Each structure stands twice: as structure tokens, then as C-alpha cells.
């Protein structure tokens, strides 16, 4: 049994069958890539995992518990963190404050009325956030207005914010989309480092084959809302159906 089990998931948008009978099992402590052409339903699948969308039918189990019918914040508190296709950070806040928020969420849960203590007196949370910024190589930017950073830095911050919650499953939706080659390589290194340093399962949606083959231990190919094949990277590379449906197109 994988840490995440998706069974017979269907999702329709009006006349469009975005997901049809998707079955997916992600094993604990692996990096699992989901690839497929644009509009294949990859983001839709991810949205069904984190409570942003509710599948029409089927089940989604995380660590033996159903995520369906739970609010996004509850699913997150179960241990699933998500990085968005365009970085979602707190643009009005400083980099350090951005990092503090998930650290508070991890320590205090979904709501805590600590209105009369000052942030600066919360040494444990501050230390953790500072440590995480060090790890993300962003300590020098701690007082920067986060909206004014480059896209690469925003992505890095967002990944750091997710990691500071110590999730068991990290979901990444095209983390390198729109990035320059150098930033992409940095992101690959960062993810490799993350994986080597902790017990974490990573599910990554990616367009860039270089990223996929550098990181993934298993790959699922999605086309028109259905998983085509699932295998190891080596097998996927040589798979005729995949070459035809996806790799050929992107080459």
C-alpha cells in the first residue's frame, strides 16, 4: 500500500471528462513524477488530492485516511503540502514572515488566538524559520518584501515554506515552469538535497523531461485524463506508447 492511494477517480467539467478512472499509488519515500501533455488533467488530479476540487466519483486515501470531504487546511494538517504552478506566497509580507507562518501553523495548528504575545518572543518558531531560510540559501533576503523577488526565489521560498511544515507528502505542480535553465538546475539540486536529507514522499508534475529524468524513481504518464503507463524512468524512456503520446511531441 502506498502512502497515497487514488482509486477510480472521475472528474467532469461540463462536457469535458478531465479525469476518467484514474488509479494511482504513490509509494512512501519515493519521488513519483506525473507527466503528460498540456490539458492531460495533471493539475486537476493534484487539485483532487488537496481538497481544492472534489472528484465526482472514486476515493483518495492518504496514509489510510480519506481526504475527501475535508477542507484544504485539514488535508494540509494531515501532512500534505503543495507547491503551486505559479508561486503562491504572501506577497505583502517579508521573506522571514512568509517562513514564520507555516512554522506557526505547524506548532499551533489551524487557529490559535495568541494576540498578546509578540512574534519576536516566539524564539522556537523564529529559530526554525531562520534555520529553514539558511537551508534555502535565502537568509540574506530575510527582510525583503517577498513580492519583489525573482520568480526563482519565490519558488524557492514556497518550497521552503512547505518543507518547514515537515510534510510527509510534498506535491509540486510544474515547479520549474517559466524558469531559466540555471534556476531549473538549482531547483533540481534543491529537490535532490531535500530528498536525501529527510523521509519525504514527493509527487511532481513536470513538463521538462530533464527535470523528470533527473529526479523521478517512478513515472506515471497521463493522457486525456487517463493514466497511460506507470513504470521506472528507464522503461518509460523506451516505451513506444509514451514516445508517441508524449515524448515525440515535446522533442
Amino acid at each position, binding site marked *: 500500500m502506498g502512502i497515497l492511494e487514488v482509486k477510480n477517480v472521475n472528474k467532469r467539467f461540463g462536457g469535458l471528462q478531465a479525469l476518467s478512472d484514474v488509479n494511482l499509488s504513490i509509494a512512501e519515500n519515493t519521488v513519483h513524477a506525473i507527466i503528460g501533455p498540456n490539458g492531460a488533467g495533471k493539475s486537476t488530479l493534484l487539485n483532487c488530492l*488537496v481538497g481544492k476540487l472534489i472528484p465526482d466519483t472514486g476515493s483518495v486515501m492518504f496514509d489510510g485516511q480519506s481526504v475527501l470531504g475535508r*477542507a*484544504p*487546511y485539514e488535508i*494540509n*494538517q494531515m501532512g500534505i*503540502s*503543495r507547491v*503551486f504552478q505559479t508561486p*503562491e*506566497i*504572501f*506577497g*505583502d*509580507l517579508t521573506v522571514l*514572515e512568509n517562513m*514564520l*507562518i*507555516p512554522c*506557526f*501553523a*505547524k506548532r*499551533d*495548528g*489551524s*487557529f*490559535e*488566538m*495568541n*494576540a*498578546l*504575545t*509578540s*512574534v*519576536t*518572543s*516566539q524564539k522556537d*518558531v523564529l529559530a526554525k524559520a531562520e534555520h529553514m531560510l539558511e537551508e534555502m540559501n535565502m537568509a540574506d533576503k530575510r527582510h525583503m518584501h517577498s513580492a519583489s523577488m525573482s520568480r526563482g526565489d519565490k519558488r524557492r521560498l514556497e518550497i521552503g*515554506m512547505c518543507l518547514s*511544515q515537515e510534510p510527509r507528502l510534498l506535491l509540486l505542480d510544474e515547479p520549474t515552469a517559466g524558469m531559466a535553465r540555471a534556476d531549473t538546475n538549482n531547483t533540481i539540486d534543491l529537490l535532490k538535497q531535500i530528498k536525501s536529507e529527510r523521509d519525504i514522499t514527493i509527487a511532481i508534475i513536470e513538463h521538462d523531461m530533464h527535470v523528470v529524468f533527473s529526479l523521478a524513481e517512478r513515472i506515471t504518464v497521463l493522457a486525456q485524463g487517463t493514466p497511460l503507463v506507470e513504470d521506472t524512468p528507464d522503461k518509460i524512456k523506451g516505451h513506444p506508447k509514451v514516445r508517441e503520446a508524449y515524448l515525440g511531441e515535446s522533442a
Partner: protein
Amino acid sequence: MFGLNARDTSLLIVVAILALCAPFILNPFPQGSAMAQFNAGYPDLMQRFVIFGIFAIGFNILFGLTGYLSFGHAAFLGVGSYSAVWMFKLLSMNVIPAILLSVIVAGLFALLIGYVSLRRSGIYFSILTLAFAQMSFALAYSVLTPITNGETGLQLSLNDPRILGVSQTADGSIPVTNLFGLEMRGTYQMDVGPWMFQFNAGYYLSALIMLIAFYLSIRIFRSPFGMMLRAVKSNQQRMNYTGLNARPYTLAAFVISGMYAGLAGGLLASMDPLAGAERMQWTASGEVVLMTILGGAGTLIGPILGAGFIKYFENIFSKINDTVLHQWFGFLPDGLEDFVVFIVHPFIGKGWHLTLGILFMLVVIFLPGGLVQGGQKIGKWLRGNKAGEDDASKASTKPAE
């Protein structure tokens, strides 16, 4: 000090000194001089400055931090006033129980309205709060007359039951509000040459409470809770996917700001024990929005500045009339004098709304951060002038190299 950092402490101290010295600061012109018109240091107006300051400080916790724009906060102010007057009627003329009840009742009322309104965000939230407030206003005006005394407004009478106290004083008049015997209307008048300064007990109580309210708001701004409220404003999507439930945060902010409004309402009634439905009208709700935006939403001191600014305009500009103008411009030749008075006329007296409206537009367009941003700009400009000179001297040395 008091758990604040150095900067916040000095801000608090500056506000405290200003509040303490307000009777002097606001009365700079000698009595009887032409400029005495602009004096604002009389008890009634000073009380309004600080009480509406409290209202705006509280409103800023909701609007400035979370970005949720309520158009119905006057309802909580009104509820606070009614509660206080009832306390005077039934229990005692001491202002403490009255103020406590105002805060509690307004808090409960805010919990109810916030719980429903916060199901939506953006313009729908604003409309819901507006609808609730107008409903409260209409109810206070009609159906709830037994509680609110309808159009006339709720007042004290000579036969209020008053458990801890008397219905009438020995000389047959209505007793006055007090703080353990210290009468709120009690005023000490100090004459210094042609100047007159008034020190009013009610003002100082209100100012003290305003300082406490301001101190609490600084604590909230600097707390993890305050940071979460700013996170709500910045990106609710990220907040949800960071395991945080935005709803209780926004509801708590709504209730807190409602309690501040109730406190302001209770204080208004403590200074002058009557309450009318018009206190809950949408114009009153709009006024606190204006105060907060004019001063600088999301800044600590902005709402107090905005409240002072608007109350000053409302009370001072509205009292300038043509006779006063003719006095001022009397030195001009008659034809010119009439012309100038004719031009200025629409902006004064009943026309003060026009002046305020124009000022408000100018601020929103040129200073989206409000008066606080204006202050910062002036500060930067003063320092920038020095820096600019340095740059110029550097530039002039460059070609020589």
C-alpha cells in the same frame, strides 16, 4: 517597555503626551482673537477626537490587517451607546459598568453579524455588513422602540429605577455620569492671559481608555495573530494550503473591532447619556471607513490621525459662516471681498462635506497610504534633500576623474 519594542514604545509615549497636552495643543489661539475660531480644545470636541480615535483603531484591526471592508460598524457603536444608557437607567451612573456592558453586548452582536457576513468576502462581505447595519438602524427606529425609544432616542428620565443610586438628586434633577464620584462633565478652567485651557474629567478618562486601546492594538499588530491577519489579506489560498483556517481569524478580528466600536459607543454615552438610532446609520459606518483610509489603513497611528482630521473638519469648518468670512476678508475692497466670500462659501459651513470630499479624493489619489504616507514622504523629502546634495557633489566630481 510593556512588551513593546523601542520604536513602538516611543510611538505610544508620543501619543500619550499629545493626548495629555491636548487642551493646550488644541487651543493655540487667544480667546476673542480672529483665529479663536480654529481652537478645538473644548471638552466636547476633544472627547470626540479620542472616542472616534478608538472607533477607528478598532476598525483598522479588521480592515487594515485583513482587508475585509465592513460598511456596518456603526451598528456596534450604536449598540454600545444603547447598552450604556440602559446601564445608567437601571444600575448606576458610574461609567465603568456601562462601558463594560457596551463592550460585551457589541462583541456578542459582532459575533452574530460576523459569523454570517464572513461566509463571503470582498464586495459581498461589505454589502452583507451594510445590510445588517441598515437593518439594525431601521429596527432601532421602529420595531425596537421599547428598547431604543425610537425616533426620540434613548434618554435618562427623572423616574429611572437605578438600583445602585437615586432616580433624582436632592434638587430634583437627573444625576450625572461619574467615575466613582468624579463627574464626567467636571471641567477645570485655566486662564493664562488671554488664553483659556479646559481640563475635563470625561476627556481624560476617554483619553486614558484610548491609550489602552491603542496599546492593545499595537500588541495585536505585533503578535502572531496579527501576522496571520495580514496573511489573510495577502493570500488566502496559500493560507489554506498552509494548514490555517482563515475563518476563525477573520471572525476574531471582526469581533475585536466590534468591541472597540462598542467601547467607543459606550464612552459617547458616558460623556452625554443619550443614544439615538442615527448613530447606527450607514453614513456613520462610512465615516469610520473614511477615517481609516484617510489616516492610513494598516498603519498604527493612521486611524487616530484620520479620526482627528475628520472630526476637526466636521466641527470647525462647519461653524465658519459668511459673517466670519466677511470679518476675515474685510481688509479687501468691497467688491473683491464679496467675490472671495462667494468663492469660498461652498466649502465652509454646511459645505464642509465638499471640502472633506475633495481632500479625501486628493489623499486617495496621491497618497494611497493616507496621511501617514504623507508624513513619511515629507520626512524622506527632508532627508532626501540632503542626500540629493551629496549626489550632486558626487556627480560634479565624476567628469574630473
